[in-house]
């Protein structure tokens, strides 16, 4: 049998059943139990073979379907009785559940459309001058208020900040930095902690400073000392005093 599966995730056994019913082009109120059970079990077995975590709800539904199927296959020996003992067709109960679920699945789709529309509207943060000075009295807010406020903020659009007229930092050179470091160490009577030689945390500044220190060490312009493993490094002017 030619059978195309839509690659999709199902929201549970009811969703899977609705999908199968759609595939087989059958009616919810008239489910061919045998066919649907076979198809359903095929899915669930495949899920198990692939060692996917099959939610227990899928197995419960499988059991229900098997029970319905075996009942429908039993020889109908109660033809006379049927007139007065009107038993509910289990398929009706299943159809009712499927219809109920379908109703909300469709409503979810409409909510999604509204949600998409809403993402097209943007607001702006409240003006700073409106920021209340009268936030006094007993605190009467819940966690939900806080989360709601946070969501509101995430929907606001943060636009790219315009390029500010920034003062260009002087081009850094290792040589310049070496001179600055030497001057700094000369003025300091005591050795300076290695970390404190880096007065900027900008990436390129760090690199230049580090290269400058290495170069100074190589030239014996500075002495680096350490009291023990993992202790702070100290840098002092000296070494090459000639």
């Amino acid at each position, binding site marked *: 049998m030619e059978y195309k599966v839509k690659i999709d995730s199902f*929201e*549970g*056994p*009811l*969703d899977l059943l609705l999908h199968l019913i759609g595939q087989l082009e*059958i*009616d*919810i*109120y*008239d489910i*061919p139990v*045998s066919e649907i059970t076979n198809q359903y079990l095929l899915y669930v077995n495949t899920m198990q073979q692939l060692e996917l975590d099959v*939610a227990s*709800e899928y197995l419960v*539904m499988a059991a229900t379907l098997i029970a319905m199927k075996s009942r*429908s296959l039993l020889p109908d020996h109660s033809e006379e009785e049927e007139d007065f003992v009107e038993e509910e067709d289990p398929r009706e109960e299943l159809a009712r*559940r499927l*219809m*109920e*679920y379908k*109703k*909300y*699945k469709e*409503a*979810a*789709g*409409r*909510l*999604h459309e*509204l*949600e*998409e*529309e*809403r*993402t*097209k*509207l*943007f*607001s*702006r*943060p*409240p*003006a700073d*001058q*409106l920021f209340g000075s009268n936030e006094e009295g007993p605190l009467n807010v819940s966690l*939900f*208020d806080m*989360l*709601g*406020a*946070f*969501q*509101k*903020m995430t*929907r*606001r*659009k*943060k*636009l*790219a900040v315009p390029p500010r007229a920034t003062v260009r930092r002087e081009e850094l050179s290792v040589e310049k930095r070496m001179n600055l470091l030497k001057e700094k160490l000369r003025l300091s009577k005591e050795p300076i902690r290695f970390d404190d030689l880096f007065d900027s945390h900008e990436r390129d500044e760090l690199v230049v400073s580090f290269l400058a220190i290495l170069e100074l060490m190589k030239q014996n312009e500075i002495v680096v000392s350490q009291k023990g493993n993992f202790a702070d490094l100290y840098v002092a002017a000296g070494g090459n005093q000639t």
Partner: protein
Amino acid sequence: MKHESIIESLLFAAGDEGLTAGQIAEVMELTVQEVQHILQSMERTFKQDEMRGTVVTSFGDEYRMMTKGENAAFIQRLAEKPSPKTLSQAALETLAIIAYNQPVTRIEVEEIRGVKTERPIATLCARGLIEEAGRADAPGRPILYATTNEFLDAFQLKSITDLPPLEESDGAMQQEADLFFGRFEEALED
């Protein structure tokens, strides 16, 4: 009229915090009815005015100024971050069930969906779309959930009664069912 100008200034300043007609009325020394009337006319004129890039919208009892939907693409282009993720199917189904049946317990939601719904409920709470609304008068006193103002905002609804009507199964389908029934019997006999 000058009133529109003042209200626009107030709404602009309030930003996404929004204002109620009552707050505006107090500041302007007008009646709430007068303010509501002006706001309603502003909702219409802003929308229609092609030159304008903003609209006045309301949800719950709050009014807000927002950008026009048709200009969204341009704003997106300028935006630093992509839009926040929309809700998953599981979360949307759960939200729909809660919205139409509130207040409702988790168990009731699970009965309709046929699957565990702890995670979608946690997600919706975290998104501020639903909140706890007391306890059900049932064994174990389970938590009841209801939608929030944030829900109205996120789906652009003025109130819960603004929700699109739930479509009940229609008669046409029932007929179809009857038609199929006969064929099903035949099929079983094979």
